[in-house]
């Protein structure tokens, strides 16, 4: 049963992945990609990691919706409403993807996979949490700070306005001059 679900999820994921490059609309390509990633979440679920599987679905839906907004906003034709192609640099991409696929497939057969020792735990979620938040706590904390710093830095670089534009030369203008007002009356 599990094997059937696993294989069908894999096939659907691949079909959606192909659709990403066949579709001529950015919205369809984005949501085909979402379909593929949701199948990957399903695969992780079937493999016995329910938390990671469901979180992949959750995160990917949010991510792909936000990505759709940006991809359509930045597309080369106005509003992204005209047919387009997702294929660029076809020869180079073909060679590159063939090489990656070949090496990954070779790795599957060459790696000496370990045999299972013991039995799987009842609650894998707890184990995932322990693995991430136990020995790897420092890594997670550092990663969190790096991600936050990247987000803040990217936002600062993208903004034309700074604090002097908002608060005046003496930083004493209250309320700040903002292009759009917010909900808490600042």
């Amino acid at each position, binding site marked *: 049963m599990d094997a059937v679900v696993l294989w069908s999820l894999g096939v659907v994921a691949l079909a959606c992945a192909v659709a990403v490059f066949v579709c001529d*609309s950015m*919205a*369809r390509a984005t*949501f085909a990609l*979402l379909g593929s990633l949701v199948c990957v979440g399903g695969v992780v679920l079937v493999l016995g990691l*329910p*938390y990671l599987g*469901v*979180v992949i*679905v*959750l995160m990917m*839906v*949010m991510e*792909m*919706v*936000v990505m*759709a*907004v940006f991809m359509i906003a930045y597309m080369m034709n106005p509003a992204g*409403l005209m047919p387009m192609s997702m294929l660029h640099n076809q020869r180079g991409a073909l060679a590159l993807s063939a090489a990656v696929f070949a090496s990954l497939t070779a790795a599957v057969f060459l790696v000496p996979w370990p045999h299972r020792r013991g039995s799987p735990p009842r*609650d894998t*979620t707890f184990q995932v949490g322990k693995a991430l938040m136990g020995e790897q706590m420092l890594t997670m904390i550092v990663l969190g700070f790096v991600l936050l710093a990247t987000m803040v830095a990217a936002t600062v670089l993208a903004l034309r306005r700074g604090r002097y534009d908002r608060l005046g030369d003496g930083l004493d203008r209250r309320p700040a001059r903002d292009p*759009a*007002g*917010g*909900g*808490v009356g*600042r």
Partner: protein
Amino acid sequence: MLLAPALLVTGALLAVAADTCAAAQHAGRRRSLGTVGRRLLEVPRLLTAQPRTLPAADRLLWRLGVIVVPVGAVLSVLVVPFGHRTVADLSVGLVWFNAMEVLTWAGLWLAGWGPNSAFSLVGGYRFVAQGLAYELPLMFALISAATGAQSLRLGDVVAAQSGLWFVVWMPVAFLVHLAGVLAFAFLGPFAYPAGRDLAGGVLAEVSGVDRLLLQAGRWLWLTAGAAMAVPLFLGGGNGPVLPAWAWSLFKTLAVLGLLVYGMRRVPVVRADRYVELAWLVLMPLTMVQVLAVALVVLVRQGG
């Protein structure tokens, strides 16, 4: 298996009936069964109505988006315990509910994109903006319940409330959850994506069965969110004298009634205003809530 969707639909119908009565009272009309019946006559009318066809609509994505909203609501209640029984008491039930709720992001954006109409598209974008505002506080609210029970399984969350209900020591999380329910059902103060100022927004072009599904999706989500609040914060089926299922039913209907009543009390909030409130006020509040819950749990364990 079929009981959960049936209960969900019944709850949604009751919510629509209550909303119709509230609307009638609001307008100074007489409340009667006839008023409710006329509102529910929309169902056969939409089922038989000829669907509108639009030039260059992306039918596939449009249909997909419309279907995702009610289907996500039905899937979300599969993990919600009714009394002591659950269709599927997943070990990650809480995350499952959240994931299904996030599907409405994709559903409503697609429902806005599909018809190739500016008003619908703006409605879809409005929901994404609203989603960015309500989602994070809602997640922290769910996390505080999970932290209090030290489990993502809803059965364990209910069991952890056999003494004191979570609503007593997680009031902020409860209120944020209720606001989140109205937001993902895009009703009441969060009806901005389907606003009247936008000729109906995501609802501007849908007709016939599609319109029925999208409208039903809103009320199904309202009911699902109310049903979820019961195991999360109100002790699930715990209660004296009456059997567990009766308590679940009673509490769900009480939350649903509160939501339907509250919906008319608050004006529609623009997403750009709500995002600032959510990120500057609600998020710190919910984070403090999670911190307080975590400290209580640690102290209880004697750590």
